[in-house]
């Protein structure tokens, strides 16, 4: 009797210990997160001022300088990537949600899955051969193409999932009114699913805003302010990479400031995604 009692006590103790260990391990991941945030804020906040945002990087040795070229570059590159990826991604998502069983749908879904797993450096290589080599120049637009390839799977997925959740009765009501197919999709189904589609879009932007590897051999970087998308362009992650790995302290400073801006930007996008999902949701 005693033995069973003691054994039971041990089992219960074991269960409590396990719970404690699991909780500790689970929340341990907060440590690196806080460490990163803390450090970036600490180092970056002193470097950011108006001057920082609007001026260009100074040559080595000179004090000061800013990251205007990288800010503009990131904006343009991400914008172009979105313009390419959003229509293609949404249309593909529409096809997949409307045709669940065709062979093309099967292979297309497989292709999207594969695309999602391609390492970012490989995407950079591909676009290098497809665009940079053909046009004989590094360019922002090639960087956008690479980023667009990475945005596609996220947009396709979220569009497909959102549309699949819509009830059939919606489509029937629209068709019974004499609406042609494209208007049923574009004017009824898509607007009703706008929150899901939009959050997928914003999520994909958040995903690629901080990507460096695809831009290494496509957009390549540019120490000067450039708004021509057919020429090499600087972007925030590229700048951080180049300057962080350089031996110059002044450039490290620039990289800290840039990191804080990039981090804030990515965070904001993630928060906006959450708000969008809630605010734009159509009560079905």
């Amino acid at each position, binding site marked *: 009797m005693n033995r069973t009692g003691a054994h039971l006590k041990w089992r219960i103790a074991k269960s409590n210990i396990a719970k404690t260990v699991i909780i500790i391990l689970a929340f341990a991941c907060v440590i690196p997160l806080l460490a990163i945030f803390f450090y970036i804020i600490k180092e970056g906040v002193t470097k950011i001022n108006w001057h920082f945002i609007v001026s260009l990087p100074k040559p080595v040795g000179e004090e000061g300088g800013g990251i205007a070229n990288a800010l503009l570059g990131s904006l343009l590159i991400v914008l172009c990537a979105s313009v390419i990826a959003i229509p293609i991604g949404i249309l593909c998502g529409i096809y997949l949600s409307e045709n669940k069983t065709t062979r093309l749908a099967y292979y297309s879904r497989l292709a999207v899955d594969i695309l999602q797993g391609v390492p970012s450096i490989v995407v950079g290589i591909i676009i290098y051969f497809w665009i940079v080599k053909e046009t004989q120049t590094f360019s922002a637009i090639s960087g956008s193409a690479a980023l667009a390839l990475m945005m596609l799977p996220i947009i396709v997925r979220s569009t497909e999932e959102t549309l699949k959740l819509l*009830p059939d*009765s*919606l489509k*029937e*009501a*629209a*068709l*019974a*009114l*004499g*609406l*042609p197919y494209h*208007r049923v999709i574009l*004017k*009824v189904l898509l*607007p*009703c699913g*706008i929150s899901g589609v939009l959050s997928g879009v914003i999520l994909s932007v958040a995903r690629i805003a901080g990507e460096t590897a695809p831009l290494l051999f496509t957009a390549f970087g540019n120490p000067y302010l450039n708004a021509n998308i057919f020429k090499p362009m600087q972007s925030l992650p590229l700048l951080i990479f180049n300057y962080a790995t350089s031996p110059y302290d002044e450039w490290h400073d620039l990289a800290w400031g840039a990191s804080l801006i990039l981090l804030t930007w990515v965070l904001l996008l993630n928060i906006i995604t959450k708000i969008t999902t809630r605010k734009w949701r*159509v*009560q*079905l």
Partner: protein
Amino acid sequence: MESTIVSSTNFNAWFGDNHVVKNVNISIPKNNVVAVMGPSGCGKTTFLRCINRMHELIPNAKAEGKMMLDDENIYDMHPIFVRLKIGMVFQRPNPFPNLSIYDNVIAGYKLNGMKLPKAEKDAIVEKSLSRAALWNEVKDNLHKKGTFLSGGQQQRLCIARAIAMEPEVLLFDEPTSALDPISTSSIEELFHELKKNYTLIIVTHNMQQAARVSDKTAFFYLGELVEYDGTKQMFTNPTDKRTQNYITGRFS
């Protein structure tokens, strides 16, 4: 003699290999309420959906035979035009959740990209909602979304939406089966008013409803049109044994 507006001759429909509508010959007179009744799976809903060519939207669905609207075969017309003339109201009310009541009523025009002057739109909305007996209840809330309406009101909104397209025929697929009794009776009163301007074909699994609202009744059984007669005649003195079994099976 009443003129026929919808008629079918040797009409058949399939789901893949499943022959669900068998050789139906029927003639629907103008400005009548025709009830289509029968047990589950008898093909009545499938037949209804063939009239506005919704049946063929299902993969592997097939239909053959003549289906005439006035003097034209609807299968020679493009389906969109058929649906502009023949409206449909579904079992579950399905107003567009992202549009206001106002926009729901003129959805058939708006979503089709047709720009009408505001005065005209207002007139259509008021006329349709009045004919659907919903105008007084929503006239102060036209620009709110329709989700706050009750089930019965939502269904009347769907009726208004269908009416706004000025169809000649209105198809109803078990329109009150998802509604409570009070909403049901308000919609049944509506049928009486609607038939002045439209022809109504109503599929119902509720025999008493068929008896209450319709001028003529069609009884479907296992895909066939077994009997089609004036409602009073059908319910007091059915000719076919199967009709009699169906009717008496439900009473007491």
